[in-house]
């Protein structure tokens, strides 16, 4: 026990000696939380729009106004000719081009099917999909407003990936309206979703990198061997090397929570203790992985690259940015092997929904199992390597 304290003391002396490293450890995560928290948003706003109105009727103008007045769209103006829509899309001047048919108002008045064509820049499929959804909504509202019960307006989509020239179901003009209410994140504010996830990601980076680099550094400068000829056991050595990073991870968590509260005005809906407990459980995995990497790498440079390699998968397959439900089935199964998947989901659940622990066992148990297995396997491998 005493030996572990000496190792801890030494480790913290080294950490505090290195001012640059200290800055990287604490200022960098805050900066990243701020910059990424504000910039990494999945909100779709200010969708650039132009309209070609072949009909030039009262009704078509009214439809144009419905789009122009909608806050999600940024109406750039009317096109002179139909091919202008295509040109503007090609030149990235606009994201959506709407072509209103020549027979639009006549068809509506006759009670026949009227149609418009929506051309979307499908380069960013996510944005295009959301924009199409908004357009559909506007159309439904419009149809209802003109009160043409008998008629339907069909919207043809073009440009969405995988749905080239897909025809949407005709928007029926029904008296029933639905109103959507989003729970837990009333305004669908991306920050509420991204910042907690971001905290999870940054904790992964800090603990994984620091552990692997810290151990490999001892190997690189030869002190690991010097430690091995002292009477300390390899278990004491590992505990002494890993514990500081566990503490640093805990401090980082609090620093980032403070940033989330102060800068993003977020509130921790759930239990702080539960969040801390879950984070410590997750650190078992990242520290274990760090130890594992240190057995593979001989130099800090190698450790950095291997850590990076693992980290890309851990983060991109965690559901932090791309919802897991959107992945192909097989890859969804693979994410069950990713401990970060559970952690990111837990941190969001606790942060936004205040989910009580009883409803979280489904995530906590696998997280704990992964942590214990990875940490003990790496420790065994590490011991084998040094003795």
């Amino acid at each position: 026990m005493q030996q572990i304290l000496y190792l801890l003391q030494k480790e913290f002396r080294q950490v505090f000696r290195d001012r640059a490293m200290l800055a990287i450890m604490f200022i960098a995560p805050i900066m990243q939380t701020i910059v990424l928290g504000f910039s990494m948003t999945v909100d779709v706003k200010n969708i650039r729009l132009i309209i070609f109105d072949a009909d030039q009727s009262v009704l078509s103008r009214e439809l144009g106004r419905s789009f122009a007045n909608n806050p999600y769209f940024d109406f750039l103006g009317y096109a002179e000719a139909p091919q202008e829509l295509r040109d503007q899309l090609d030149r990235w001047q606009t994201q959506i081009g709407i072509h209103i048919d020549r027979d639009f108002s006549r068809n509506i008045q006759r009670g026949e099917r009227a149609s418009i064509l929506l051309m979307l820049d499908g380069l960013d499929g996510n944005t295009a999909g959301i924009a199409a959804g908004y357009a559909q909504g506007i159309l439904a509202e419009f149809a209802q407003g003109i009160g043409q019960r008998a008629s339907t307006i069909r919207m043809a989509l073009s440009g969405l990936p995988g749905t080239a020239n897909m025809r949407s179901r005709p928007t029926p003009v029904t008296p029933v309206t639905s109103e959507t209410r989003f729970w837990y994140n009333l305004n669908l504010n991306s920050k509420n979703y991204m910042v907690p996830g971001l905290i999870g990601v940054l904790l992964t980076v800090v603990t994984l990198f620091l552990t692997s680099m810290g151990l490999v550094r001892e190997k690189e400068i030869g002190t690991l061997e010097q430690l091995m000829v002292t009477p300390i056991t390899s278990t004491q050595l590992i505990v002494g090397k890993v514990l500081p990073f566990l503490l640093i991870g805990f401090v980082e968590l609090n620093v980032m929570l403070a940033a989330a509260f102060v800068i993003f005005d977020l509130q921790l809906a759930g239990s702080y203790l539960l969040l801390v407990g879950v984070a410590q459980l997750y650190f078992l995995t990242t520290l274990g992985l760090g130890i594992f990497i240190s057995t593979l790498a001989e130099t800090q440079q190698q450790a950095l690259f291997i850590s990076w390699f693992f980290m890309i998968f851990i983060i991109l397959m965690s559901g932090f940015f791309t919802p897991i439900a959107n992945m192909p089935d097989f890859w969804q199964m693979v994410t069950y092997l990713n401990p970060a998947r559970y952690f990111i989901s837990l941190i969001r659940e606790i942060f936004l929904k205040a989910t009580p622990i009883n409803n979280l066992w489904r995530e906590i148990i696998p997280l704990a199992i992964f942590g214990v297995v990875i940490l003990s396997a790496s420790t065994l491998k590490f011991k084998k390597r040094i003795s």
Partner: protein
Amino acid sequence: MQTHIAIEHFSKNFDGVEAVKNISLSVSKGELFGLIGPDGAGKTTTMRSLCTLLPVEQGELSIVGLDVRKEVRRIRSRIGYMPQRFSLYPDLSVEQNLLFFADLFGVPKQEKFQRLQELYHFSKLEPFKKRLAKQLSGGMKQKLALSCTLIHTPEVLILDEPTTGVDPVSRREFWLILKKLRDDGVTILVSTPYMDEALLCDRVAFMHKGQILALDKPDKIGRLFPYALYEISSSAPQKIQNHLQSQPSVQTVHIFGDRVHASFRESLSAEQLATIQRTAPEPIAAMRQIEPGIEDTFLELMKQVE
């Protein structure tokens, strides 16, 4: 005399390559024993095995009577090992490094500071105790490393090329410290590639390609030299060497600085000497028979193995 280090029929393979081939030696308590030999001779492997850092498969190794295979932790608290490369924390100060190792070795608090003073005294590092290890000169780094291995007053010291890359003044100073430790009863096994350092040891073992080719007191090693040796002074030693190499009566020719050492099967007569001097391509200033030194012997022994 008590045996402090015993190696019996020790061999070590790395992936099928024999690094050490069946060596045996023993070092008595308070002896300064040198392992001499070129790079790749097996010195480091032997030392690391003694320090319990490598698994021992073949042969018996023991330190202060303890089996290296079985008594790992007890051995580690009684030996001091200094690896070839500087292996301390560059970002900790001299004092922090010393105290850290004192703590790990479990040196009691009351003894710790007294021990520190003793180590500062002989290493003369006290004025630099607040300095970071990475800011020390090469010689001071080695003295700090030695101090760290001495912090727990080990009975046996194992030093792997402690003076490689250190300036001549620091080297001499370092060896004076070793002699003093030896006089205090510490058993020292030290490896070095420098022949002049071999002369400072009580006994040396010459290792080459995993084998011990000679083991004796340094002044007796020369007796193993099988030929009559002559030293030739000339302003063009290279030309003399080239010339002698083509002579059938010459066994070996080596350049030692500005001199040439040439050996013959038997001592030369005055007539033979005169012939050599006369036929030399460059004037020979002096040629005289000398006692073979340790280096002559090692070069010869190495040649015999190859």
